[in-house]
């Protein structure tokens, strides 16, 4: 029953997507040719179908309906409620259901805003059509090669032995399912990370859809950019938060003490982030100065293509081995779709670009536009570096059969200088005037922050920090934040003088008067904090291995660690075997940590679950490597100021949402916004 309902939802969404795509193609030339009711029905069908599929999957999971193969293979009766819900997107087929639903909801938001405008506009209809065509692909593979509602026709003792694609096939449900992948049920963040990332990924298809619609129409101007700005920012914020939460999950679960390894799956999410960030900045240049019109089309096509490439890398098995991705038909399908998107949109771009783009030239490199160009160059080169570092070994292996290692050293070597250059641009860009900047104006705005930053840098040196990345990281971060704070203070003082109110009261009003600009600055502060956190924790961290017997105490990085006793606990879905370790600082017990090894039914290897004591000064991180025979072995780490990374990353994400939160609350007069444009 679950399978039938869910599969019906997929088919409904698929048919609606086809209809929406056809309506879009028809209406992109002339909006009058599209019947309003048909358009509405297609959108409703898409959303209803996607929601029904997700609902059926969730109901099936919660009801332990093991006649559905996906549920038998990825859930169990003993799986806790929370992880049952999250299992809907934990494995391949389910994750595509989530993708489809998010895509449908984004389509609905486009439709609703269009409906409220009450004006037939072919640009919008074309965009809805493109969203429909993208949906055809995703619901198409759900209906065929990635069917989440395959029926189990031959049960194994646990899990499903053989399944059928036909939802009405006579089912044979196993008594027990396999349960989720141990790593995915070891920490609640894993339930949050994929939806955040997917909203980010899929949200990027909205500006893409409008761009394609504008290209088909040969419509010049920045209508497509302005209309999609809020979607782009929301998608960017979710993508940022998704990546940060992914890093936090890796840190909290995997037990190696790191949060970022430059592995292909991480790179897959970072590449679209870099290009989307470039796009957000260059679209400001087009809106303000009319420049970079063609470039913005390239960036939005690249962003969307990279989200598809990311899905391909994560979901096709190409990473495990170049030759394994054809084992499942999903890999080739995604690769074909990517090719289609690239060839289709780039040839459309090539034939239409003369109609849509006629940019004025740059007056001077020493201007806001100049810094924006520099920023775009750095971000796209960064994305390119990550792209070739990820794909190069795969190509070499595919064509020569020999293995090639490209890892952290390669990426670090290129990413560190690129990041510092980007931070420099971030410090100078927002206070550099448009058109042509006089050095005296820029100097006036950075003088004080520069001195403060140098003082902080010198202070770090005098305190004994000599590592170049730590000192320069703290100095640059302070500089960026200082420039922004000074700018805000100066604007607030000006506003206060005009209105005769106290300065501190004007701060909020100034920020609300130009939410786009100040949202950007919040994001910049977040990135500066994140960069400082990375520089400090990566270079001032300490690691050691300890072997302890009960009652024994060891000294580590200003802490005394005492192994008290071992413990074990039986939980419905796992057995936990751990060690209780008392942590003392200056002879005072500050924490009792319980790193453990968790054994899940599904796997032979226990999953190490690290225990972390977080304080403002840093994290004490214990990871159990072995236990038994009256002794334990621990990997212990001390990472100063790691929380800056999570805090900075989430602050950056919040910056992207700031304009939306402000505009929701108050309609801002355009006049007020103009006042700050030169800032």
């Amino acid at each position, binding site marked *: 029953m679950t399978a039938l309902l869910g599969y019906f939802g997929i088919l409904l969404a698929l048919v609606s997507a086809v209809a929406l795509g056809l309506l879009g193609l028809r209406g992109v030339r002339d909006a009058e040719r599209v019947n309003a009711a048909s358009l509405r029905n297609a959108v409703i069908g898409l959303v209803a179908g996607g929601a029904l599929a997700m609902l059926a999957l969730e109901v099936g999971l919660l009801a332990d309906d093991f006649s559905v193969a996906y549920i038998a293979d990825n859930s169990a009766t003993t799986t806790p409620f929370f992880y049952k819900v999250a299992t809907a997107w934990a494995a391949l087929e389910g994750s595509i259901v989530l993708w489809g639903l998010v895509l449908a909801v984004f389509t609905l938001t486009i439709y609703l805003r269009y409906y409220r405008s009450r004006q037939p506009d072919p640009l919008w209809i074309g965009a809805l059509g493109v969203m429909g065509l993208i949906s055809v692909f995703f619901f198409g593979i759900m209906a065929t090669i990635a069917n989440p509602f395959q029926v189990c026709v031959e049960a194994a003792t646990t899990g499903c032995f053989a399944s059928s694609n036909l939802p009405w096939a006579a089912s044979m449900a196993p008594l027990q399912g396999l349960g989720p992948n141990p790593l995915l049920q070891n920490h609640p963040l894993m339930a949050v990370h994929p939806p955040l990332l997917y909203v980010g990924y899929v949200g990027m298809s909205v500006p893409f859809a409008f761009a394609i619609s504008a290209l088909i129409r040969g419509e010049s101007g920045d209508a497509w950019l302005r209309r999609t700005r809020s979607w782009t920012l929301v998608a960017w914020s979710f993508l940022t938060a998704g990546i940060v939460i992914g890093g936090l999950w890796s840190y909290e679960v995997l*037990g*190696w003490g*790191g949060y970022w*390894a430059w*592995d292909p799956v991480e790179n897959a999410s970072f590449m679209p982030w870099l290009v989307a960030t470039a796009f957000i900045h260059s679209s400001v240049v087009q809106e303000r100065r009319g420049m970079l019109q063609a470039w913005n089309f390239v960036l939005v096509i690249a962003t969307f293509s990279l989200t598809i490439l990311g899905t391909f890398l994560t979901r096709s098995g190409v*990473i*495990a081995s170049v030759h394994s991705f054809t084992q499942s038909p999903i890999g080739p399908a995604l690769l074909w779709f990517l090719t289609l998107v690239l060839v289709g949109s780039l040839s459309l771009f090539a034939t239409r670009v003369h109609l849509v783009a006629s940019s*004025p*030239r*740059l*007056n001077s*490199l020493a201007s806001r536009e100049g810094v924006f*160009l*520099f920023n775009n*160059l750095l971000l*796209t*080169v960064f994305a*390119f*570096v990550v792209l*070739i*570092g990820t794909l*190069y070994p795969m190509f*070499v292996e595919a064509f*020569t059969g*020999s*293995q*090639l*290692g*490209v*890892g*952290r*050293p*390669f990426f670090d*070597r*290129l990413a560190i200088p690129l990041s510092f250059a980007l931070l420099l641009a971030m410090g100078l860009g927002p206070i550099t*005037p448009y*058109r*042509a900047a006089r050095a005296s*104006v820029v100097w*006036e705005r950075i003088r004080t922050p*520069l*001195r403060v930053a*140098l003082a902080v*840098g*010198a202070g*770090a*040196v*005098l305190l004994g920090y*000599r590592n*170049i990345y730590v*000192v*320069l990281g703290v100095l640059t971060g302070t500089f960026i934040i200082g420039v922004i704070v000074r700018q805000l203070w*100066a604007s607030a*003082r*000006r506003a206060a003088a005009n209105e005769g109110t106290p300065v501190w009261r004007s701060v909020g009003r100034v920020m609300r008067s130009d939410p786009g600009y100040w949202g950007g600055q919040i994001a910049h502060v977040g990135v500066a904090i994140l960069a400082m956190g990375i520089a400090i924790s990566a270079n001032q961290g300490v*690691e050691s291995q300890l072997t302890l017997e009960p009652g024994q105490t060891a000294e580590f990085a200003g802490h005394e660690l005492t192994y008290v006793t071992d413990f074990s606990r039986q939980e419905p879905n796992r057995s936990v075997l751990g060690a209780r370790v008392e942590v003392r600082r200056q002879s005072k017990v500050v924490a009792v940590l319980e790193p453990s090894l968790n054994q899940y039914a599904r796997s032979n290897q226990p999953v*190490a679950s690290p225990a972390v004591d977080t304080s403002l000064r840093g994290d004490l991180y214990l990871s159990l*490597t072995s236990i038994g025979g009256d002794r334990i072995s621990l990997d212990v780490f001390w990472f100063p100021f790691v929380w800056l990374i999570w805090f900075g990353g989430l602050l950056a994400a919040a910056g992207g949402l700031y304009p939306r939160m402000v505009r929701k609350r108050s309609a801002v007069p355009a006049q007020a916004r103009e006042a700050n444009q*030169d*800032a």
Partner: protein
Amino acid sequence: MPDGMRGVIAGLITVALAAIVVVGIAVGDQSPQNRAQALGSRIKCPVCQGEAIVDSPSETATAMMEIVAEQVDQGRTDDQILEFFRARYGDGILLDPPFRGRTLALWLLPVGAVAAGIILILRRRQSPLVEAPASPELGEPT
């Protein structure tokens, strides 16, 4: 105090602070605190998926880390230690691709991309300049 004098003092302080930073970095020991770990991050764990031996909890990686630590204690150089592993496992064991042979392109492509980008930006600028209207908003609005 006259304004000129104040400026000179502020400038001197700025230079002094910058000097402290530069000297501090210059005299500081920039080599990694833990050589074995730095080397471990450049060697791939042969039984894992693209993980370095320093990051992997697997037995193979742990054993390899022990070899690295031993050789560091014996005073062998970084190159000697990396070569030791390369000779046994082949080029694929190094996560830090060398600047030669098959991986040359990997290093040259990003440089090429930067060069292409800079040329593109400069060409956009060299076209006939449109005189920007002298606008009052260019000044410091404070």
